[in-house]
């Protein structure tokens, strides 16, 4: 009886679906459809990626040779700060929420996200947050110049006056993320098709589930710390002001208590995406599914007790340094489990190398390099040398660009046929991949050596001996930036036309999303599928 009623859902209730009929801008403003909202998230994040990338191009142009050529030091600081904030909160995070919106309901056999109106809100407040952030470039104060980590007192006592706008923007981003995360958790808990138990969920769904919990746990901490910053700067409190009895080091503790889980928020969904793609193109089941689930959970748990590895040089007692060093190194264990599982999945598989697979394999190798440099940074004694140098910059770009971003590319290529109904241009996709791969390594690999040789991060000028490496890094940077326009071309071409995609264009792909037509109809799984 129950299924009977749900079967009739479509025919009986027209009023729920009238977002169908809206046209033009209204369709997008009022839509509560998970696919529309997913698309908007993905486009938004891509635009932010280009904006943040444009800022990076100016940074690399300034660093092309020693001396001050193009920008003033203060403006340089604004560039690095806003670049970081945009890439973290505007490009990577919304892209993953876009994936979640598009894919989660289809993967668990649900007709939509559980809270469609909330979903609309959580997307539509985002553009305002970034309008404020980017708009501050054009204000008298200038944009935030205290680094994406906004350490007090740089952002309080010594702020250029942009703190209020910054705090406001971060609050909006935080609210958006929390609403999005609540939606994801509720959807996964309550909307799974009958028979889909937790341990039958695709790993992709698991990683988003855990990430959403991380978001719910730490975004409020971020909201709290920016609020303290605001009152310290404008209302005379002294949370972080030594003159009034506060302690600036406390800022770092609270920030990194948010900040380290935040970096896992940006990598766990990537794990989910490559764990979907690698089995598909190896034509094997994912090796060690349940160990992947446990590894993801333990990474999430451990991420709460390692934050002070960002603060080794603040003068912690020896015990603290040892504690945080060992906890950090412990994270390498579940991370290693994952890497070995991906390798085991590929082992003796009949692999093919379409663009999504290429990006996924590059992910496994290059993310691992980032993990290794992370391990080096986790060693307290050597971190005293590496801290605040380009070595750290190399580390986090390997995990975030060749890690998170590459997984986003992989996922985009993988599901583009499902989204658009057309195959993307495979040749162009491969060109995008190889251009990105070569340029990204030229861009970030030499940074390791620059850091080891002592070049500090966040500086507009540098000593002469770093000149050669910086020249190559900048060339890599420009090439990487240009390569991303190829991606834009691929996506536009794919939306406009191309070879028709079948419901399941990838031979080895698994999952409910491939049981519906391509492009995925506006409403899918209004009748829950049968899971065995």
């Amino acid at each position, binding site marked *: *009886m*129950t299924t009977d*009623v*749900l079967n*009739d*859902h479509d025919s*009986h*209730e027209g009023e729920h679906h009238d977002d169908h009929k809206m046209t033009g801008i209204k369709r997008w403003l009022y839509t509560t459809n998970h696919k529309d909202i997913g698309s908007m998230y993905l486009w938004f994040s891509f635009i932010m990626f280009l904006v943040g990338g444009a800022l990076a191009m100016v940074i690399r142009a300034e660093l092309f040779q020693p001396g001050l050529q193009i920008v003033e030091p203060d403006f340089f600081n604004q560039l690095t700060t806003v670049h970081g904030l945009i890439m973290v909160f505007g490009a990577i995070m919304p892209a993953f929420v876009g994936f979640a919106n598009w894919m989660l309901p289809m993967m668990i056999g649900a007709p939509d996200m*559980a*809270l469609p109106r909330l979903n609309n809100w959580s997307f539509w407040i985002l553009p305002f947050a970034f309008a404020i952030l980017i708009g501050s470039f054009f204000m008298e104060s200038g944009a935030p110049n205290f680094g994406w980590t906004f350490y007090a007192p740089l952002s309080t*006592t*010594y702020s250029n006056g942009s703190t209020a706008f910054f705090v406001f923007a971060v609050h909006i981003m935080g609210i958006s993320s*929390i609403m999005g995360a*609540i939606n994801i*958790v*509720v959807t996964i*808990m*309550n909307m799974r098709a009958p028979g889909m138990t937790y341990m039958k969920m695709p790993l992709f769904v698991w990683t988003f589930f855990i990430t959403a919990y991380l978001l*719910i*746990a*730490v*975004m*409020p*901490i971020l*909201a*709290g*710390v920016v609020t*303290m910053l605001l009152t310290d700067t404008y209302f*005379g409190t002294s*949370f972080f002001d*030594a*003159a*009034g*009895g506060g*302690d600036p*080091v*406390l800022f770092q*503790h*609270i920030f990194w*208590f948010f900040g380290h889980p935040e970096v896992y928020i940006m990598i766990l969904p990537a794990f989910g995406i490559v764990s979907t793609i690698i089995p598909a193109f190896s034509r094997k089941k994912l090796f060690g599914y349940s160990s992947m689930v446990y590894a993801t959970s333990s990474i999430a748990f451990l991420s709460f007790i390692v934050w002070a590895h960002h603060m080794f040089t603040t*003068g*912690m*007692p020896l015990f*603290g340094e040892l504690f945080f060093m060992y906890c950090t190194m412990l994270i390498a264990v579940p991370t290693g489990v994952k890497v070995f599982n991906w390798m085991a999945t590929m082992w003796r598989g009949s692999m093919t190398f379409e663009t999504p697979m290429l990006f996924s394999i590059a992910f496994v190798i290059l993310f691992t390099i980032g993990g290794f440099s992370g391990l080096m940074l986790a060693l307290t004694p050597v971190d005293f040398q590496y801290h605040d140098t380009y070595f750290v910059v190399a580390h986090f770009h390997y995990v975030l660009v060749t890690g998170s971003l590459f997984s986003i590319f992989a996922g985009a290529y993988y599901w583009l046929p499902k989204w658009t109904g057309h195959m993307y241009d495979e040749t162009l996709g491969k060109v995008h991949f190889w251009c990105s791969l070569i340029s990204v390594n030229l861009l970030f690999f030499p940074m390791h050596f620059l850091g080891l040789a002592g070049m500090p991060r966040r500086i507009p000028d540098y000593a002469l001996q770093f000149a050669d490496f910086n020249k190559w890094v900048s060339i890599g940077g420009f090439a990487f930036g240009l390569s991303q326009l190829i991606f834009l071309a691929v996506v536009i071409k794919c939306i406009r036309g191309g070879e028709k995609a079948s419901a399941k264009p990838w031979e080895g792909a698994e999952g409910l999303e491939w049981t519906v037509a391509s492009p995925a109809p506006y409403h899918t799984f209004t009748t829950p599928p049968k899971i065995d």
Partner: protein
Amino acid sequence: MDKGTEQAEQHKSLKQEIEQSAQQKNSKVIKKLMLIVFGMFGFGFALVPLYDVFCDITGLNGKTNDTAAAYADGGIDTSRTITVQFITRTAKGIPWQFNPVINEVKVHPGEMKFVKFYAKNESDRDIVGQAVPSVSPGLAAAYFQKIECFCFTQQPLQANEEIEMGLQFYVDLELPEEITTLTLSYTLYDITGKVDS
């Protein structure tokens, strides 16, 4: 009412029931999640006092006692001599001269000492200063006892006024063996704005 509409009615109410129960299930989860959200927001603020307590116990951030300690007369340990160094710093924007009168003293644990610091307001406006002390190594902070200190109070100085300010302290007998040198650092802040408001 014919049979068809009746059935449709039944359908409709059943469907509403299902939707309602789904909504109830959802709002139950949402409530729990919102509890986490508010809880963690509060936890962020709770970290402030927690950190203070933690630092008090461990001497993590080198903060010393901010109210006068009483002299605990447990004798003087002449077998050990501790060097206590004084350094001063003025925070950005306070036009004062500020330095210790002597740069270091040698004391035995348990022995009381009195030293002086000199300050002069070199500007032509009245300014209220606040000195904030910090001890390095941080673990020693708990053993550095100030009986009297200019840092316990605000220090107003009129334009061009100068002053000598006193510090009376002793080093606790319990100071760990391995510590032989203590550095006491004062940073002087301009808090005129905060006092006015």
